[in-house]
């Protein structure tokens, strides 16, 4: 056996491989993305990027029904998209094991909300495991597949950012091959029309009772009896924080977080003097404990918001005052920015001139919401740009300008396309701008159906976004290079004047892609620069103000010349062109 330092995500991929897994389907999303990237490195596994999480879960379900151990991985909000198959897969059950990974993001390090996906396990009535470090991430992934087969149910594995992206030591084992189970046609089990679904609901309820009994005996729910003055119920990252903060306290560590081991928790509460529940986000355990009449203390002491760290646990439970150490206040913040040379910046520069409402979406381009660009009015969920501008246009019927929808190609394929079909069908007055940078950039460069490569970077068919838009019935479709500002501005103007939905594909590859050529850096001629600061309005990190004039950082400048085009005095140019 070898010991290695792995991230939780690497450990999940490893656990899936060790357990004889076969099929992985996923859509990227921080902090879950590296699970699939790592799974793709194992030759025995079939891994793919799906266009969205619903597709991913259904593919994995099909593979599980087809007899192969399977996994679907996503970030927490991805499970909203995949919720439809989730709830009914709980009815049908599986054939070979199916594990669904939900990587939650308490603290919203890179998410639009911090929903607590343990609720999904409760609502869909499926078992949920929650590891607290990488070793458990590996072991629980293996266990999830075993449980899935033992109880004939999909199993949810809930991670959080700190477990997904934290590294700790893991013992590696070999792969245990699993033979593919025969596919057996079983209409009563898999056709969930009412007649078939009613008996399956009964099966589901019976299974939950069996799982509750299992929860009472499984070793992943662990009693750690130490000083009995304080007893703490916890799981996941919070378990590590509790051990750090109060090493002497007794702990009931939950590994299986749904269904809960009611009897063992009652016994624990009786064994300790004072019972606390330390859980990030919602009062998921606390409410259930209280509903059983167990007295405990949880959200009176701990926030429903964000993460809970050891100092807060110590202060809240021991009532000791601790000195607060905070980062130095009043320093300039360092927010993430669109990179120098990013094609999105060029698109927004042209869009801003339209002075139209801009319904935004989720991707690198969301960074354009911040100053100085401030070019996006809304960001809700993937695909919502297309649909919300249609709704906005219906509400603001007498507005002079069409609202814009701005979204990346990965987001368009994920869930923008249905909105576009709706826009055509219902005669929306909107302009949809697809920012096609040939990659899913925000989550760290994953391929997608429009990029021409698959998860293993092997060539794949390229989705033609213009043809797709036309096939949906959009009559005004233009593809332009955003760095050709004249062409883009003309295309946008045409789209705004066009009656009916229009689509503009603003196409230029992400500047961070290795094959993208950079031009020579530009410089500012101080003889000509009048210090008007117009060039600074695009928020390029290569440009800064030095005294009253602008300078360009040649180590960052990619020569995209967007700033040069804005300069009325023509003070920005390349060393060679004058």
């Amino acid at each position, binding site marked *: 056996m070898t010991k290695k330092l792995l991230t939780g995500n690497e450990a999940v991929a490893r656990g899936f491989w060790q357990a004889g897994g076969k099929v992985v389907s996923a859509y990227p999303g921080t902090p879950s993305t590296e699970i699939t990237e790592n799974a793709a490195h194992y030759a025995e596994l079939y891994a793919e990027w799906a266009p969205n999480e619903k597709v991913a879960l259904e593919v994995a379900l099909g593979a599980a029904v087809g007899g192969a151990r399977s996994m679907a991985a996503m970030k927490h909000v991805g499970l909203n998209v995949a919720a439809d198959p989730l709830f009914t897969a709980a009815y049908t059950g599986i054939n070979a094991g199916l594990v669904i990974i939900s990587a939650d993001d308490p603290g919203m390090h890179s998410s639009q909300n911090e929903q607590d996906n343990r609720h999904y396990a409760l609502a869909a009535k499926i078992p949920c495991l929650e590891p607290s470090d990488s070793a458990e991430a590996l072991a629980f992934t293996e266990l999830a597949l075993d449980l899935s087969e033992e109880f004939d149910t999909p199993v949810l594995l809930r991670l959080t950012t700190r477990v997904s992206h*934290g590294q700790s030591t893991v013992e590696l084992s070999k792969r245990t091959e699993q033979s593919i189970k025969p596919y057996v046609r079983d209409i009563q089990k898999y056709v969930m029309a009412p007649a078939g679904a009613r008996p399956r609901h009964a099966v589901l309820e019976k299974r939950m009772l069996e799982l509750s009994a299992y929860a009472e005996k499984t070793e992943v729910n662990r009693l750690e009896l130490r000083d009995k003055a304080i007893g703490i119920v916890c799981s996941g990252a919070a378990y590590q924080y509790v051990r750090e903060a109060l090493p002497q306290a007794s702990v009931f560590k939950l590994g299986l977080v749904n269904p809960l081991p009611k009897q063992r928790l009652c016994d624990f509460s009786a064994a300790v003097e004072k019972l606390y529940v330390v859980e990030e986000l919602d009062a998921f355990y606390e409410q259930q404990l209280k509903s059983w009449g167990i007295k405990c203390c949880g959200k009176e002491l701990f926030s429903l918001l964000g993460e809970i760290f050891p100092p807060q646990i110590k202060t809240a439970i021991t009532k000791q005052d601790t000195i607060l150490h905070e*980062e*130095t206040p009043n320093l*300039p913040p*360092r927010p993430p920015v669109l990179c120098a040379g990013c094609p999105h910046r060029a698109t927004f520069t042209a869009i801003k001139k339209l002075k139209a409402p801009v319904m935004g979406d989720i991707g690198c381009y969301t960074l354009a919401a911040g100053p100085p660009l401030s070019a996006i009015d809304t960001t809700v969920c993937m695909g919502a740009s297309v649909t919300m501008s249609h709704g906005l246009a219906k509400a603001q019927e007498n507005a002079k300008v069409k609202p814009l929808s701005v979204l990346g190609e990965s987001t368009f394929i994920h869930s923008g396309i249905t909105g576009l079909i709706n826009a055509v069908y219902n005669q929306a007055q909107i302009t949809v701008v697809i920012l096609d940078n040939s990659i899913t950039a925000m989550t760290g460069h994953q391929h997608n159906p429009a990029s021409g490569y698959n998860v293993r970077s092997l060539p794949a068919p390229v989705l033609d976004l213009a043809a797709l838009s036309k096939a949906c019935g959009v009559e005004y479709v233009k593809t332009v290079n955003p760095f050709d500002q004249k062409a883009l501005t003309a295309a946008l103007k045409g789209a705004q004047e066009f009656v009916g939905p229009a689509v503009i594909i603003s196409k230029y590859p992400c500047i961070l892609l290795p094959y993208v050529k950079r031009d020579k850096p530009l410089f500012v001629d101080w003889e000509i620069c009048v210090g008007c600061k117009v060039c600074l309005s695009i928020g390029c*990190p290569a440009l800064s*103000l030095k005294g009253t004039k602008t300078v360009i950082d040649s180590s960052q400048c990619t020569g995209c010349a967007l700033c040069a085009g804005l300069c009325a005095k023509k003070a920005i140019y390349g060393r060679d062109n004058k």
Partner: protein
Amino acid sequence: MSSITNIMIAGVGGQGTILAGRIISLLALKATYDVKVSEVHGMSQRGGSVLTQVRYGDEVHSPIIDPGEVDILLAFEKLEALRMLPLLKPLGRMIVNSQEIPPLPVLNGSMIYPADIDQRLQTFSGSLSLLNAYELALQAGNDKAVNTVLLGKLSQNMAFSLSDWHQAISAAVKPQFEELNLRAFDLGAAYDD
């Protein structure tokens, strides 16, 4: 808990903080310590502040360093060093790249980059090494080697042997960058302040 070493690595997205964390954790693992590392990727990669935390010792639970418990701060940028200063132990150690990378609010003139960072860092009660790792990296052959220069400086007061450092670096970087990084490390390790 004093048997645990807490190292915080602060910098700007794209500077190679994650690699520095990986090299330190490989060394700690080889020395048979229990090791935990925490980092957050995603949004913050695009030129924002980034933080990697490495903890090692006999038994480590939390991957996160409590504020005020940082033994060593490895700061890849001066403003980021100042930001993290209050999180250090009073007798902690700070290794700071004196390079200035202005954040967006400074670039566009809406805020100013503090001019007194050096003085404010000097008030630190522990030990401070301020070096121009950017220059040293260029000297080694590439500005991308800022991280290994800083690791070289860090190595001066650590229990790991020079050959272990070299091995960990060779294991963590791509073969084509091995020589560059070893050179950069040696420059940092030889730097006297």
